[in-house]
């Protein structure tokens, strides 16, 4: 039995400590240990993006990060996107634009969109399709997702001005 490691990290703005084995992915730690089940396991090999979280400012597939690697890191998961009383504008635009059907890919898309709009507040359609290429959706055909991201970018721009 391999010894568990003690890991200190910040998740959604709160200091979090956990114990994990080296074999456990960050996704397993989030879902099974910390019960943050918003990040989804789709492919478990880095293709689908359903497990996307923001790690130290950049989006990553949490299935391809080991829990032991995030010592000292700052993580944002889908649970940290909305405030207690309000959905984030990205979530509101996905909802209003019906940019989801089964919903398994949606947490990953929302988190990846948050990262995209943080880095590039006014993306072109090409930018959106390129930067979200690491998120797969088998329901929508993507067009509604692209429109929801464009709508969210516009709302966020308006909120800033």
């Amino acid at each position, binding site marked *: *039995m391999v010894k568990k490691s003690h890991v200190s990290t910040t998740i959604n703005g709160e200091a979090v400590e956990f114990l994990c084995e080296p074999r456990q992915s960050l996704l397993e730690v989030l*879902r099974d240990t910390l019960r943050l089940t918003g990040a989804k396991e789709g492919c478990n090999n*880095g293709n689908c993006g359903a497990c996307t979280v923001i790690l130290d400012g950049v989006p990553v597939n949490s299935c391809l990060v080991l829990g032991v690697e995030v010592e000292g890191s700052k993580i944002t998961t889908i649970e940290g996107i909305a405030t207690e009383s309000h959905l984030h504008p990205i979530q509101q635009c996905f909802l209003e634009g019906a940019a989801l059907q089964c919903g398994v890919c949606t947490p990953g898309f929302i988190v990846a969109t948050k990262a995209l709009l943080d880095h590039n507040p006014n993306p072109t359609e090409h930018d959106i399709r390129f930067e979200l290429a690491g998120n797969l959706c088998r329901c929508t055909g993507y067009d509604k997702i692209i429109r929801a991201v464009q709508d969210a970018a516009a709302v966020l721009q308006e909120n800033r001005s």
Partner: protein
Amino acid sequence: MPHRRGESYALKEIEYAAATSVDEAVGLLAARGDKARVMAGGTDIIVQLREGLRDADLIVDVKKIPEMMQFSYDPAKGLHLGASVPCYKIYGDEKIAAAYPALADASRIIGGWQIQSRASIGGNLCNSSPAADSIPALIAQDAKCTIAGPSGRRTVPVAEFCTSPGRNVLARGELLVALDFPPVGKREGARYLRFIPRNEMDIAVVGVGVWLRLNEKDDTIAAARLALAAVAPKPLAAPEVGTWLVGKPATAATFAEAGDRARALAKPISDMRGPAEYRVHLVGVMTTRALTGAAERAMKR
């Protein structure tokens, strides 16, 4: 009950060590031999260990080694790139992307953004896939590997690094520490292009990396270097084509004939990504396009 994953997709019980110096990593790798595996971004090795494609008892994380996470660019000295630096740092640096555009092209299309946030060029090279996107770009941009091992350091050109699918010249205890690129002069341009049936997020059916320098009138090729991916058991340097290009006019006809010459070197296999004849055809088309793109970039420098 907590969610359980099928045993076949869970990572087996394994040890983890985050080395903080090259010497510490070399010591671990030398002691444990092929039962230890290096992890930089982890985007290949974690999947391979999970799916049983590679085996290890110990993962040696090399992202906590400062020397391997550093990169610096000096127009007079060139680019020094630590082997663990993630792809997004490369294309995110305007000066580096402008000086080494084939490297930037490749680092921008290895997986999606989530992969580029973790995956390193050094890791892409050490994974040594014949279809790796970075390796033709590294060969075209004349990169050299610094390898540390139990008996000290050595330098190997990237063109001589890979030996067969998934294998390379690293011996027991050896570690790729950094890649060094020569300074870039005027009228030099480079391009990496790959063919995939999707828009993004796929493994190259064929990839081509090229670098060239034009003469002072911008109309003749003064020097050229090419490398081809996914058409041989390892990334294939094509010095024959580079030598042939020297002194030729920088025209569509020249680039088309260079494509024919690249086709003649290709010895691909047929697999799920495409039959061999298709790859041979594609490598000609992509060579012509990559040379055209590199020449356009060279004219702007």
